[in-house]
């Protein structure tokens, strides 16, 4: 087929599918449902291809048959144990690979979380109290941490301090929301540009 026609068919398909999805805003309907099931199917197919070509081929087939690394048989066997899930009776065998992934993930997450989520954040919060910002940051961080303190009822002085923490949290939520609006509108702009420019040619 001509490249031009292919592109036109492509744009037309994309336009139709875009409108089918937008129809959800009015209400859930058979057109949206069609698009939903189609999207699920296509994306599952996509991931299947990508994972086979980009992981199973280079990390299993290539390593095993071309480079002859027999160690690859271990994860391959563990991976295959996942298939027993489809058979109820043997399903418990899949706990072996599951345990490996969960355990190893937990292990590597501990130092990573400690370093990036706690230590770095602590380090960055230690600022001179001679500036307004330094004081605000110290109060903000400590009062918000106090809000998350579960061993004590939020009453009296401590209660007021945690209340301050909730105010800081509200500023954070409001700010994040406000900032996010920007991004969300950009997404709509992108879609409308497609409909108005690429599909209908109304804007240049």
């Amino acid at each position, binding site marked *: 087929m001509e490249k031009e026609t292919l592109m036109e068919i492509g744009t037309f398909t994309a336009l139709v599918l875009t409108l089918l*999805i937008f129809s*959800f805003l009015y209400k*859930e309907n058979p057109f949206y*449902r069609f*698009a*939903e099931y189609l*999207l*699920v199917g*296509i*994306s*599952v197919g*996509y*991931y299947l291809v990508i994972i086979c070509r980009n992981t199973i081929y280079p990390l299993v087939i290539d390593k095993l048959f071309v480079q002859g690394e027999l160690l690859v048989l271990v994860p391959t066997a563990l991976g295959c144990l*996942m298939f027993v*899930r489809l058979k109820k009776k043997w*399903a418990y065998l*899949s*706990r072996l690979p*599951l345990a490996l*992934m*969960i355990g*190893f*993930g*937990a292990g*590597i*997450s*501990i*130092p990573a*979380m*400690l*370093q990036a989520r*706690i*230590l*770095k954040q*602590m*380090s*960055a*919060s*230690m*600022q*001179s*109290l*001679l500036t307004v910002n*330094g004081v605000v940051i*110290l109060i903000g*961080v*400590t009062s918000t*941490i*106090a809000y*998350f*303190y*579960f*061993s004590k009822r939020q009453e009296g002085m401590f209660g007021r301090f945690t209340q301050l923490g909730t105010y800081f*949290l509200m500023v*954070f*939520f*409001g700010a*994040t*929301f406000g900032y*996010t609006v920007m991004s969300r509108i950009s997404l709509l702009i992108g879609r409308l540009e497609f409909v108005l420019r690429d599909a209908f040619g109304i804007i240049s």
Partner: protein
Amino acid sequence: MKGEGTNIFQRWVIVSCLILVSFFIFPSPLYAEAQADCGAHDTPSDGGGSITIFWSDSADLIPAHVDTLTVYRRAVGDSDWDRLAETTTREKLFLDNNTIDGIAYEYRLEAKDSVSGTQFRVGSVTSSPQWFNANRTVVLVGVLACLAVLAGVMYIQRSGKSFYVRPIRGLEAVDEAVGRATEMGKSVLFTPGWGGDIQRPTTIAALNILRYVATKTAEYRCDLYFPTHDPVIMAAAEEVIHEAYIEQGQADIYNADNVFYTTSSQLGYAAAVDGLITRYKPAAVFLLGTFEGEALILAETGNSVGAMQVAGTDSTIQLSFFMVACDYTLIGEELFAASGYLTKDSKILASVKVQDYLKVIIVTLLVVGAIMATFGSSVLSDWLGQT
């Protein structure tokens, strides 16, 4: 019960001993050569293959104004020198990252310009890999502190003391939501978000809450749907839900098809869950786990069918959407605490206590650090921030 406790205690002892032993058996060499004018040593805290050469730019070693410094190397016993690199005298340090472990090298440093010059030799020295990265001592101290507090709390707990945990806003809502679904004869939907995988502790915490929710739906005999984007989470969730149903003696109504993988695509997943919500109109929607952009799509759709929504996530951005669109939101750490609170599992409650004690330490350090910063010292802040 007692036997299990001992078991865990033993494991705890093994972990901390392993770490401690590795700390003492393979201490990173501490170099006392800082006083020397020049020298070379194996680069510390690395995987081998590197030697550090250092010099001072004091006038007795290098003539003033000389800027260019050339580094030569030879293996001990060879006669020819290899020119390695040209650097400047101001650098005071050169890393030769191209050595073979176990071979002794010596280095010749030549500092000269058109007017004056000097050269000196350092070595011989061999590179070797270290077992411990001393730059990460602070993170090790942190992990040890966590383990120590955990051990302490578990010790106290074994002596029979129980802990107080304050009520968490919105947690009672879990029961209420499931009860409401039963009354209305509708289903419950639980989804852990697209952002997580099984390696994230958040997902584990969410699965804990899932277990509680599943116990309730089993008890009230109402349908529980669990769509996910991750096949591994699906596998783990099947185990969790199935167990809850067996525990309640309701294994016969457990339907494995209600726990399913949709697609790994973020918006494919969102579209599928949206479709599910609008078609089944669940009376309760639980959005607990790591969410990204799909958070508000799901929350608004859940709201539009009038579901009671309980959300909780560790993704800081999506928290703000959940706050606005859902009935109850567990903020960050509350999600972790909730799993202990709901299951009333004493060991999980103990770890909530651990978190609290660590918070006291953290706040103390923060205040000390800020005071130090006020007086111009960034020692603590630098130490914590090092990598």
